[in-house]
């Protein structure tokens, strides 16, 4: 392993291609932690936003008008404002209100910036997911639900075991579009200093002064990350596609 790192050091001496993230153990650890942070942000937000979508679609079918209009306004707010504004709103707007005093007397935020990034990105993507799942749920014929009812399924169990599995298969293509966009949107967490890949790379290039090299590394990393996600999702989409339906 060490010889490989040394080879990259020699590469730098010979050609000026300064890959500090490979031969410098500190930069390497930083970049890996940034990459893992991006992965973690993406994974947690994907799971949370899908859960929000499922819950929201369920609430939109509620009999109470108040619940329905609450979900409606939630969607309108998060769908029609830029995600950067939402992140600022959560971090600076709400985050500055939620503080405690530390032992030394200074104000300490209760919720960290990473947490706020997760919360705001999940709500952002979740708003789209609610609409996507709702369209999926609406696509289920009434007769299917009535059949489930006649078999003695309760409303919740009908939703969980009959409607949702079908709706999920219908809405997966739209869901994939949204989740891929979500992974790209995690770069905006840069704006509130979440140490994800873009932020860490900017730290590295300002320390090592290797802007062009790091830029290319960053671009390829995102290409591979998002490309992998797209590939996996599209395979899954093809595998569980409803037979005879869709393009």
């Amino acid at each position, binding site marked *: 392993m060490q010889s490989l790192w040394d080879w990259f050091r020699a590469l730098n001496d010979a050609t000026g291609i300064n890959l500090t993230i490979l031969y410098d153990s500190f930069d390497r650890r930083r970049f890996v932690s940034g990459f893992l942070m991006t992965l973690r942000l993406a994974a947690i937000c994907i799971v949370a936003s899908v859960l929000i979508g499922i819950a929201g679609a369920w609430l939109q079918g509620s009999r109470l008008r108040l619940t329905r209009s609450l979900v409606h306004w939630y969607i*309108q707010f998060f*769908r*029609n404002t*830029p995600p950067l504004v939402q992140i600022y709103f959560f971090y600076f707007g709400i985050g500055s209100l939620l503080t405690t005093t530390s032992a030394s007397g200074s104000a300490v935020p209760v919720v960290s910036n990473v947490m706020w990034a997760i919360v705001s990105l999940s709500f952002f993507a979740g708003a*789209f997911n609610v609409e*996507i799942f709702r*369209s*999926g749920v*609406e*696509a*289920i*014929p009434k*007769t*299917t639900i009535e059949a489930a009812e006649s078999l003695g399924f309760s409303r919740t169990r009908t939703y969980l075991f009959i409607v949702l599995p079908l709706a999920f298969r*219908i*809405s997966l*293509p*739209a869901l994939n*579009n*949204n989740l891929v*966009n979500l992974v*790209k*949107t995690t*770069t*905006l967490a*840069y*704006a509130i200093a979440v140490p994800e890949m*873009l932020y860490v790379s*900017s730290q590295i290039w300002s320390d090592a002064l290797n*802007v*062009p090299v790091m*830029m290319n590394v*960053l*671009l390829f990393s*995102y*290409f591979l*990350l*998002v*490309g992998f996600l*797209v590939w996996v999702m599209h395979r899954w989409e093809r*595998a569980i596609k*409803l*037979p*005879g*339906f*869709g*393009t």
Partner: protein
Amino acid sequence: MSRRRWNQELPQGTDLPVLMPSATRIARSATVERMSGFFMLRLQPAHGAALLLLFLIGCGVAQAQAEPGHPSILVTIWKWTPLLLGGFLFNLAISAVAMTFGTLAGMFLGFAQISLLPPIRKGAWFTTHFFRNAPWLVLLFYCMFLLPFQVTVFGITVPIPDWIKATLGLALPVMANVSEIVRGAVQSIPTAQWESAASLAFNRRQTMWMIIVPQCIKRMLPPWMNLYAILTMATVLTSIVGVAEMMTLTGRVLSAESRPGLLLAFYSYVLFWFFLYCYPIARWTVRLEAKYAVNH
């Protein structure tokens, strides 16, 4: 691939009861969104009203916090409006230039993606997906930091201002998305069109230009217009890299005024201008989409 074999054994292609129309709707919008790379903007008059309300609340807050000697908040906003609108025109100019170049390059790339020569097809596919998968912010940073601030051609030094670099940074993702729109539209034309053109002795180029492309325009227009609206809103990203567009100017105005409480009023004012510009485009897109959807 046992699943696929199972598919082919089905007599009618489906063993499900008929799905409701919502299923077709979501499938169609997912296809359009995958082509344009973005969700469809669906702006409504209510959003404008909400923004206006926000603006009025902001004005009220600013008025309440104003000290006695200060001019009214509306007068202050009116005073800065020419400057801010100049910035807004800059936003529009950036979006127009980025869209023009992005579309031109994207058309080439899109047609290269359906070329019969494998190296061209694969290269175009890779380029398209490379720029589609990269986040806009990363591409913007890439162009801002890596392009030189001046170039010397034949002894003449030409400076490259920031906004040109930013425009190029925005044109790259537009190019990739337009390329995908073109490819998706061409591939959505039924193969029967190609076959009947071939039976009438059209060659490939004639088929493309006289039969396929004219039919594609209808399918390309809605996602293309949606992409333009999204791009216009994305031009504020250039404020992060210091281009003097509306958002940057608003920040400067706020620090010049150095009065508390102006934040909400000014930013909602900026948002409102963007809404005014994007709303007709978004409505028109939805209308065109509905109009052309009948032909599917």
